[in-house]
């Protein structure tokens, strides 16, 4: 058997080689293939590595520390938690790498693709190294590399002004987050006297509770910014769509999960939350998760840019993950271990699922972009006939993310719902009612997410093409289909055979539980009195679905006999000339929801009419309607903060006279003052 160390080295070397060769072989014949096949191979190694750590319990601990720099060593430690996230990275980057072989052709000829390949490899590598880092220094360095490479990916198409703007928002927000993470680590350092995660594990449980609260709040804001919690989410819907689609897939599917990783380390690894003192941590996570998921879903429904809609849906899913995580903390704080495990499994299962289907969907959106060169759903339509395979795979993603059986999203949403329903075991009725109401948000999210994905799939792929963009669309190259196929298969496998995911998570997080070990076992939860609370066996459900479908087909054939199908025009009320202008569009599809939640969206409709004659206002020459929605967060939260900051700095910048002399004077004054200070101090 291969040791974890070898696998780890092989993974690192292959990613680095991919990055280097991308630069060295620029423009050569097979450079594109090598640039993306190397990371694909590396991803395979990463997957094997994580399996090795999770199932063979071959944890890896490497210390690359020199005595003189003990505080700043590069410590690597791969335990089950790291391995779980390595698996996520490996799985997604395997699919996305294969996909990129074809997708990069989109940029060939007009952009330098070798830079893209380089950044792509370094980005994956940095995410991988973030989750294996075992010291503050290493963690932050790789965290920063991850942020910077993703920033460069966001502004890869910097010719477009909008992308530069998203890049700026992204880099400001991400550094704000990093500051909070750093602060959190520094507080832990001050208390433990060490920068090593090992020391954190050892001593953090003993630091005072108030300090722990501070650590948690700082980490929550810091990691939350990266994860995209509301209201720190504004960068996400700007940055993710701006990046090339393969990078968007990585960012949405994996990068934001590194924040979840960080939170889990702080919550469950450095600390244990086994006393009611920590209940409010869970409530904070749960309520933030609930708000985040609803708001993400609401924006996803009304969005008409396909990649932005997907980005908003990432926010929504992070909300669901945090809901599970928060429940887990609440349960753990009341020592309800079994339920804490259930909620954690739900949360991690959703993390895994989201990585799978969100990368699938972003790759699908990228395929549409590749074929039609537009991200605007209003310009799409009818792609199901032009791109049959892409549409099928995209549909799998849409079904999964909408939480429909028998796909993987259903399993994790089912588990999360069961965790929500189990709150009756918490000995605190206020909390019980609160959580019950939080479940309202969860259910609303599920409903809205389904609406969003019906819209995204229906408007982009179905009915007539709405513009000339789709006229010449053809199916994408095979490599792009393979990439999507890998994730679609994973989505189906995790949905039909949930024992895979559940065993993976319980082994990775070292949880003892009596959950299914084979495909035919069911997930069974028991209630307080020991009878069956709920059970689920998706495999059986699939068998039942298939047999019912077969039986009904047989029945209909027998009763109905053979009939013909005549192809004719869509019914047009006898009016004639039904065309694409009469179809429902993305905006009109979401109009009812926009109207119901108008307090939130603040839609503004401006209608301009032009008449043939002002005397007769019944005969209109033209009518033009424009509907806009406003972003409450940017208007109510960010704009005031930003303008206050600008005001403040406007005052401060009077110091900045522009005269060299005054700057020199500042230096002189500072120097003299410091020296006087030294002189006067005892």
């Amino acid at each position, binding site marked *: 058997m291969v040791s974890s160390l070898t696998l780890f080295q092989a993974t690192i070397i292959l990613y680095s080689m991919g990055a280097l060769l991308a630069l060295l072989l620029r423009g050569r014949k097979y450079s594109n293939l090598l640039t993306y096949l190397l990371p694909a191979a590396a991803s395979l190694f990463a997957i094997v590595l994580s399996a090795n750590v999770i199932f063979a319990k071959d944890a890896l601990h490497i210390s690359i520390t020199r005595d003189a720099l003990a505080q700043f060593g590069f410590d690597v430690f791969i335990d089950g938690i790291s391995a779980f996230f390595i698996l996520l990275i490996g799985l997604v980057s395997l699919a996305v790498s294969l996909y990129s072989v074809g997708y990069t052709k989109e940029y060939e000829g007009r952009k330098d693709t070798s830079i893209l390949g380089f950044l792509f490899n370094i980005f994956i590598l940095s995410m991988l190294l973030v989750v294996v880092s075992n010291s503050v220094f290493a963690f932050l360095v790789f965290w920063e590399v991850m942020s910077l490479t993703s920033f460069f990916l966001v502004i890869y198409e910097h010719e477009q002004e909008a992308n530069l703007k998203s890049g700026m928002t992204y880099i400001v927000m991400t550094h704000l987050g990093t500051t909070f993470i750093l602060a959190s680590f520094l507080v832990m350092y001050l208390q433990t006297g060490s920068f090593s995660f090992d020391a954190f594990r050892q001593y953090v449980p003993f630091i005072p509770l108030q300090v722990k609260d501070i650590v948690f709040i700082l980490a929550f804001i810091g990691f939350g910014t990266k994860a995209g919690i509301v209201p720190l989410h504004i960068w996400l819907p700007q940055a993710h769509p701006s990046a090339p689609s393969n990078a968007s897939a990585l960012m949405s599917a994996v990068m934001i999960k590194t924040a979840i990783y960080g939170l889990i380390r702080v919550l469950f690894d450095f600390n244990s939350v086994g006393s009611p003192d920590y209940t409010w941590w869970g409530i904070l996570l749960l309520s933030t998760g609930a708000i985040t998921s609803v708001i993400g879903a609401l924006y996803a429904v009304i969005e008409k840019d396909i990649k932005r809609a997907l980005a908003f849906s990432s926010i929504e899913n992070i909300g669901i993950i945090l809901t599970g995580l928060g429940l887990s903390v609440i349960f753990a704080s009341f020592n309800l271990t079994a339920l804490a495990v259930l909620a954690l499994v739900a949360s991690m299962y959703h993390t895994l699922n989201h990585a799978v289907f969100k990368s699938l969907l972003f790759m699908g959106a990228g395929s549409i972009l590749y074929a039609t060169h537009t991200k605007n759903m209003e310009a799409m339509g009818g792609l199901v006939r032009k791109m049959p395979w892409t549409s099928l795979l995209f549909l799998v993603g849409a079904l999964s993310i909408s939480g429909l059986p028998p796909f993987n999203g259903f399993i994790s949403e089912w588990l999360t719902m069961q965790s929500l329903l189990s709150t009756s075991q918490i000995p605190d009725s206020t909390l019980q009612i609160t959580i019950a109401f939080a479940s309202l948000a969860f259910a609303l999210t599920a409903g809205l997410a389904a609406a969003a994905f019906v819209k995204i799939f229906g408007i982009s792929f179905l009915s007539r093409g709405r513009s000339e963009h789709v006229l010449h669309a053809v199916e994408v190259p095979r490599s792009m289909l393979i990439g999507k196929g890998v994730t679609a298969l994973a989505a189906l496998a995790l949905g039909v055979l949930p024992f895979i995911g559940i065993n993976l998570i319980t082994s990775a997080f070292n949880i003892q539980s009596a959950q299914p070990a084979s495909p035919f076992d069911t997930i069974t939860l028991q209630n307080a009195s020991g009878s069956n609370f709920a059970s689920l066996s998706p495999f059986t459900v699939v068998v039942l679905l298939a047999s019912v479908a077969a039986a009904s087909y047989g029945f209909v054939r027998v009763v109905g006999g053979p009939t013909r199908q005549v192809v004719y025009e869509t019914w047009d009320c006898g009016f004639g000339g039904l065309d694409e202008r009469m179809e429902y569009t993305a905006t009109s599809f979401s109009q009812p929801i926009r109207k119901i939640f108008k307090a939130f969206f603040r839609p503004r409709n401006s209608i301009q009419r032009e008449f043939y004659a002002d005397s007769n206002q019944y005969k209109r020459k033209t009518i033009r309607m424009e509907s806009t929605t406003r972003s409450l967060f940017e208007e109510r939260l960010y704009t005031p903060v930003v303008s206050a900051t600008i005001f403040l700095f406007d005052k401060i910048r009077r110091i900045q006279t*522009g*005269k*060299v*002399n005054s700057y*020199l004077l500042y230096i*002189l004054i500072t120097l003299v003052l410091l020296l*006087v200070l030294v*002189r006067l101090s005892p």
Partner: protein
Amino acid sequence: MIPTDAPQIDILTISSAVLMIATFGVVVRRGFMDWLRAYRYQTMALSGVTAIIAYMTGIWEIYIAAALTLIIKAVVIPRVLLRVTSQLKFVARYELNPYISVRLSAIISALLVALAYFLTQQVPFRSDQILRAYLPVSLSLLFIGMFTMVNRRVALNQIVGLLIIENGLFLFATALTHGVSLIIEIGVFIDILVGVIISAALMTRISHTFDNLNVDNLEHLRDDKEE
């Protein structure tokens, strides 16, 4: 080791006084040619002081440093400056209108010297005579150099402040360590040479762009939205 008898202390005091006077000579000159000449004298004084340190410590490397100071700072740098700036117009070379008048700046320089002595009074190694004599001087040079830079409007004349600072630092290092490694000192010399060349070249550009070397013009480089 370092001798501590009285006559030598006198040499130290006198030499530091000479250096100080030479510095004031640089500060009060307004024209480019004038201060360049004064700077030459100051550098000669500095190299004399360096030689004294070399004599007192008996480290032969410092003689070389003194010689190098003389050659590079008193000969090479003035020449370079002269050549690079030869095509500059008169307004670009003469400080017509400093922020603070020359007289007042002399007084301020004197105050700065006092400040330097005050600051260094409690520094340890007081038994080290060389340090005791030259540390306040070097600090004064630092302050005066900075002040000169603050006070001058014409960019070319700000170089004088830079050069004074550099001399101060050199003295500071030599007095404190009795000779940094020679290699490093040579490196520092070359650094200052390159620095002077670059700033001179920059000034030529500035004068081409703005028609004079008044640093007030740089204000326009500020990123102002209101304008």
